[in-house]
């Protein structure tokens, strides 16, 4: 037999010995496995919505590596109607200067600067209002509830409570608009340092309450099954 067919190097290679590596126990199940509320929701890819289940490409500052955001909520978009209407009125206000020329005592260049300044102020007003709405957000993760209060540009507060510290969850919907558009408040009482976390004027408060209860049950189940981190 030609030598080429009986290769001397054809000895079987030693099987790769895989050392026993400690397998990281899986602490959390996927939220869809235990939450009926989340099972019915699709992943949220739009960061501008008020109710964002299972958000994609979203995280927060103090997030653990194994912690997943289950839901983010912010105030219902209807709360923005007030400042949007104000912006529209402010934007058309300079038109009335033709009929009520109360800036006429100014030289023309001052009038011009006043109008330009007015529109830049409106831009700032819109930006401030939008940022306040956008960053005033409540997060529900599979471990914690996080409340990011961005009341104004000068006031920011971030509070968090562990799910297993939750003692009581109540939701309330009030008023004609609240009932029609399905928004309201969710009050979560905890046993931790943060006594109460409030989700204000959020969409679908009942659904959020059900989700918190499901998270709470899962937390209990984790304890029973020894899946606690």
């Amino acid at each position, binding site marked *: 037999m030609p030598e080429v067919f009986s290769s001397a190097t054809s000895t079987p290679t030693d099987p790769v010995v895989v050392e026993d590596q400690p397998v990281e126990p899986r602490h959390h199940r996927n939220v869809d496995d235990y939450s009926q509320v989340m099972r019915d929701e699709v992943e949220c890819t739009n960061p501008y919505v008020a109710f964002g289940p299972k958000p994609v490409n979203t995280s927060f500052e103090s997030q653990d590596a194994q912690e997943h955001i289950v839901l983010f909520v912010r105030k219902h978009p209807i709360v923005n109607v007030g400042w949007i209407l104000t912006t529209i009125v402010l934007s058309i206000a300079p038109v009335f200067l033709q009929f009520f020329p109360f800036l006429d005592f*100014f030289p023309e260049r001052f009038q011009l600067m006043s109008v330009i300044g007015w529109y830049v102020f409106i831009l700032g007003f819109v930006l401030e209002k939008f940022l306040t709405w*956008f*960053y005033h957000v409540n997060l529900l993760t599979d471990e914690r509830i996080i409340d990011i209060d961005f009341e104004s540009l000068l006031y920011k507060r971030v509070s968090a409570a562990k799910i297993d510290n939750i003692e009581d969850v109540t939701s309330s919907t009030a008023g004609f608009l609240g009932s029609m558009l399905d928004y309201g408040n969710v009050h979560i009482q905890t046993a931790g340092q943060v006594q109460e976390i409030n989700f204000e004027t959020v969409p679908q408060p009942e659904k959020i309450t059900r989700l918190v209860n499901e998270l709470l049950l899962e937390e209990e189940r984790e304890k029973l099954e020894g899946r606690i981190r």
Partner: protein
Amino acid sequence: MNNSLEFFDRFIFILSDVQRDTTVFWILVKYCFVLAFFLYFLFALLVLRQTFLMAQTFKTTAEPVLKIFAFIHLLFALGLVVLALVVL
């Protein structure tokens, strides 16, 4: 369209107007305007700073858009100060 052209012509005229009323009163008014716009510029800086801070606190895909808007706003505010110094 005509209106915007008129506005632009008027703007150019005001910029090139050399016979300005330069009495002490109007100079004082000018610096009141500049001060107000400068304070507004500081506010715009605060908005930009807060936008960057909040983008760290809560990270989403909207982050670049908001940062760009905050930056444009800052540029407008700066432009306002410069324009007030030049035009008034």
